[in-house]
């Protein structure tokens, strides 16, 4: 999606920044590091490092032992990076994998950012149960869309996989046909979800 946004909208003053949450990396994925990672990507899209960030970096360098960034500072720096941008798409993937300890800090950071930087659009993915937390921190601004694979997607994916497998001894046209028939049948809930996607415009 990130590549797609850039392809479709790419141009001056547009940035896309993403963070992939991972429950296997709770130590590294603090709210400060995640907000910092967003800042990093926006800065990278700018021609030069914004002076506020440059100054904060120099200040931190002068401090003996070098202190890590704290959440309020990173949020401020993200704001400075966003200022020259007309639009920035921030994507947070698998928010439910973020540890409880950092989830509220991350969401309240995103709340501040979306309030202070009107050019920001947030895209968050996660399991359905995390929705209430998202809505709590970003009231009135959340649109929810269930996502699932459509049957065409499943078929297409299987075909790709089977093509890679076709060299193996066990694979033959009959088995392939069987797989193509049975697997999509086994996942009927995905069809249901896919069909219930359309969100009425009146919800806005």
């Amino acid at each position, binding site marked *: 999606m990130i590549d*797609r946004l850039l392809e479709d909208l790419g141009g001056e003053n547009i940035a896309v920044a993403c963070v992939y949450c991972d429950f296997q990396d709770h130590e590294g994925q603090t709210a400060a590091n995640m907000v910092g990672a967003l800042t990093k990507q926006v800065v990278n899209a700018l021609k030069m490092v914004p002076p506020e960030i440059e100054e904060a970096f120099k200040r931190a360098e002068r401090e003996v032992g070098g202190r890590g960034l704290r959440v309020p500072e990173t949020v401020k720096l993200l704001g400075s990076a966003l200022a020259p941008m007309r639009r920035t798409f921030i994507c947070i993937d698998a928010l439910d994998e973020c540890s409880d300890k950092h989830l509220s800090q991350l969401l309240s950071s995103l709340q501040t950012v979306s309030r202070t930087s009107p050019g920001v659009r947030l895209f968050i993915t996660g399991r359905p149960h995390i929705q209430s937390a998202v809505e709590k921190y970003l009231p009135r601004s959340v649109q929810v*869309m269930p996502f699932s694979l459509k049957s065409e997607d499943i078929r297409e994916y299987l075909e790709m996989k089977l093509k890679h497998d076709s060299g193996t001894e066990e694979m033959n046209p009959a088995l392939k046909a069987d797989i193509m028939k049975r697997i999509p049948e086994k996942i009927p809930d995905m069809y249901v979800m896919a069909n219930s996607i359309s969100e009425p415009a009146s919800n806005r």
Partner: protein
Amino acid sequence: MNGSTQVEPNATGTGHINSFNQINSNNTTTIITTHADEKAKVLNWLSPLQPHVRHNDVRNRRQDGLGEWFLQTDGFLRWRDGEGESGKATLFCSGNPGVGKTFLR
């Protein structure tokens, strides 16, 4: 790679790949750090996380066209094209693990 054609050994021997210690005509050593090097330092300081590594991994395993319908829905396009205060600024894409949310292209 042997960098000796680009980087001359300097008096103190502390030069590294991105910073050049140059001896100028007055024979004083001037450290010129490339702009890119300075930017890289700032970026590292901002966060140790490297989302682009994961992104490249996702990109390599992704099947083009997967979930294309989602990116064509009114809801998605409204979110993408809404400016400033117009429309909802946050899109929450909900789904259970394994349905391919990460691999949306």
